[in-house]
């Protein structure tokens, strides 16, 4: 009864997952601080204005979703993505707009609901939220939370968020925020709950939680062979069944960069990728990438979508199929890339990659039936 998501296709269970939901293609950014033509970083403010322009361009070239991930660093100066999304909403009509992700554990679920239901109002029902942790661990000390409490914070706040989405007065009690008693939380949405996803990296219990709360599943795959997540996709549908919920779509989020040729994409992306990972590696325990490891990650087995439109389209199609996912969100950009490079990436994604993926997925793949047009 507490299905918190909109339009769920109640098709018979014999229909394969991939045919249940329409294909959706999105872009995500962390507000990666742009470089200028000489490689010097532009200001935070200019980067933010560029993101607005990128979101508007995304709609013009046919992209379905534009997401902004919360971050609080000099190279990702994007703590208030919902404000930026509102600016994009005012200049667009069709594209869906959401967080990617909202770091719910260090936020107040009531305020997150209010901000995104406001965005939903401004955009005429185009808001979405992806809840998770992201790499935005910097929000914990900033707002006075202890990372050791992460699990408890997320569990409790995600449950409250599910209650808020239902739309009626909320009565709730927990340990991470003051209780609510018959609290009417405004603004009300016009047409029911907006779509909510949980971003999952590799913890199967997070998959179960998404199913239990009735949230959609977004698989964050930023390294290693994406195929290993197929089991998570199946686990999610099984868990939904167990909780008596209808099937829900699965999305894949992965980083990448598209340029006219494979070589150009690689040449633009690799130095910035190396620089970023080298910067965060000491505190995050990452290994420093090498050209060899980068080649592996950008190859057919790896998680990075760097290349020409054809290369990237083939990889997206293969992985959507393997993971029984119907949505792909490309995390575009990297600190130091220019706004012009990002606009080219966006145009190639919208005008060439997406149509090509649709084409590749249109004929019946081996096994499942054709994803019939609606």
């Amino acid at each position, binding site marked *: 009864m507490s299905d918190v998501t909109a339009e769920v296709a109640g098709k018979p269970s014999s229909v394969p997952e991939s045919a249940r939901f329409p294909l959706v293609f999105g872009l995500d950014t962390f507000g990666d601080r742009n470089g200028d033509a000489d490689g010097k970083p532009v200001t935070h403010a200019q980067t933010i204005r560029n993101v607005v322009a990128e979101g508007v361009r995304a709609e013009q070239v046919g992209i379905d979703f534009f997401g902004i991930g919360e971050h609080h660093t000099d190279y990702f100066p994007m703590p208030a993505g919902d404000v930026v999304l509102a600016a994009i909403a005012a200049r667009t009509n069709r594209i869906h707009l959401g967080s990617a992700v909202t770091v719910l554990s260090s936020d107040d679920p009531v305020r997150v609901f209010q901000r995104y239901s406001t965005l939903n109002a401004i955009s005429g029902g185009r808001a979405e939220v992806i809840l998770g942790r*992201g790499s935005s*661990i910097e929000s914990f000390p900033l707002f006075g939370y202890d990372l050791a409490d992460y699990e408890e914070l997320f569990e409790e706040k995600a449950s409250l968020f599910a209650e808020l989405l239902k739309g009626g007065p909320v009565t709730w009690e927990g340990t991470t925020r003051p209780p609510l008693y018959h609290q009417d939380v405004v603004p009300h949405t016009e047409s029911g709950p907006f779509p909510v996803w949980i971003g999952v*990296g590799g913890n199967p219990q997070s998959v179960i939680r998404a199913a239990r709360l009735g949230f959609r599943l977004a698989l964050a795959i*930023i*390294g*290693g062979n994406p195929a290993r997540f197929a089991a998570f996709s199946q686990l999610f549908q099984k868990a939904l069944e167990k909780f008596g919920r209808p099937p829900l779509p699965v999305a894949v989020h992965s980083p990448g960069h598209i340029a006219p040729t494979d070589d150009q994409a690689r040449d633009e992306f690799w130095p910035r990728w190396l620089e970023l990972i080298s910067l965060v590696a000491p505190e*995050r325990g990452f*290994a420093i990438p090498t050209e060899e490891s980068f080649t*592996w990650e950008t190859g057919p087995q790896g998680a990075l979508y760097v290349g020409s439109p054809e290369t990237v389209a083939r990889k997206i199609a293969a992985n959507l199929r393997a993971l029984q996912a119907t949505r792909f969100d490309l995390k575009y950009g990297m600190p130091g890339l220019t706004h012009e490079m990002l606009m080219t990436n966006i145009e190639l994604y919208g005008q060439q990659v997406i149509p090509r993926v649709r084409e590749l997925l249109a004929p019946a793949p081996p096994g499942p039936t054709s994803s019939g047009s609606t």
Partner: protein
Amino acid sequence: MEGAMATLPRLSVLGAGHVGPVVARLATRAGYPVAIAASGDPGNLALVTEMLIPGAEPRWAADAVADADMVVLAMPLHRFLRVDPSLLADRLVIDAMNYWPATDGVLGDFEDSAGSSQIVARRLAGSAVVKAINHIGYHELEQNARPAGSPDRRAAGVAGDDPVAVAAVGEFVDRIGYDPVRLPSLEAGQVLQPGGPVFGLVLRRPEFERAIGAEPATAGPPGPHVLAQAQSGRGE
């Protein structure tokens, strides 16, 4: 320790987050009897076990440990601090955990020049603690596992103060798909920690041995590296 093929040691994995299920799956495939436990009711793990770790048995932690020959600690370190050491007394314990203040928060108990496994061993005075399986990302552990004799087999460090325990864990690591590189003490095992020369890398034996003899900054060429752990990107 039973040596015969037919009676592999009983393994219990404590932790069902990122790492635990992967280790449990590798061990189940290698023929070990495996139990897995999280902090609560094993009923909550039923679906995860059925779908992701077929053959393993979800149990209450205390029951799982009571029947185990080897226990894998695959929980966040701050959770480990809540574990009653007497639960693990007289057990062979594989410490697959890492201290990562930037990701998991600062833990006073681990702000120490000693390695995290040495601190774990201090708390578990009645157990034999071996550091292993901590330095390969959970997302890579499975895709790089290879049977003995494979040309592209990768190495995994096994460090501990008790040579019998190190030998036993070395055999386990070997059976789940890695070439064990034994280190003579938990102190020596500090090279396996975050920030160390092999952390996050999946190296062949010669490269691994060269790396742990070298400065962290000049680690050998890595194999298919993957930087990700779940906390990055969008993952919750």
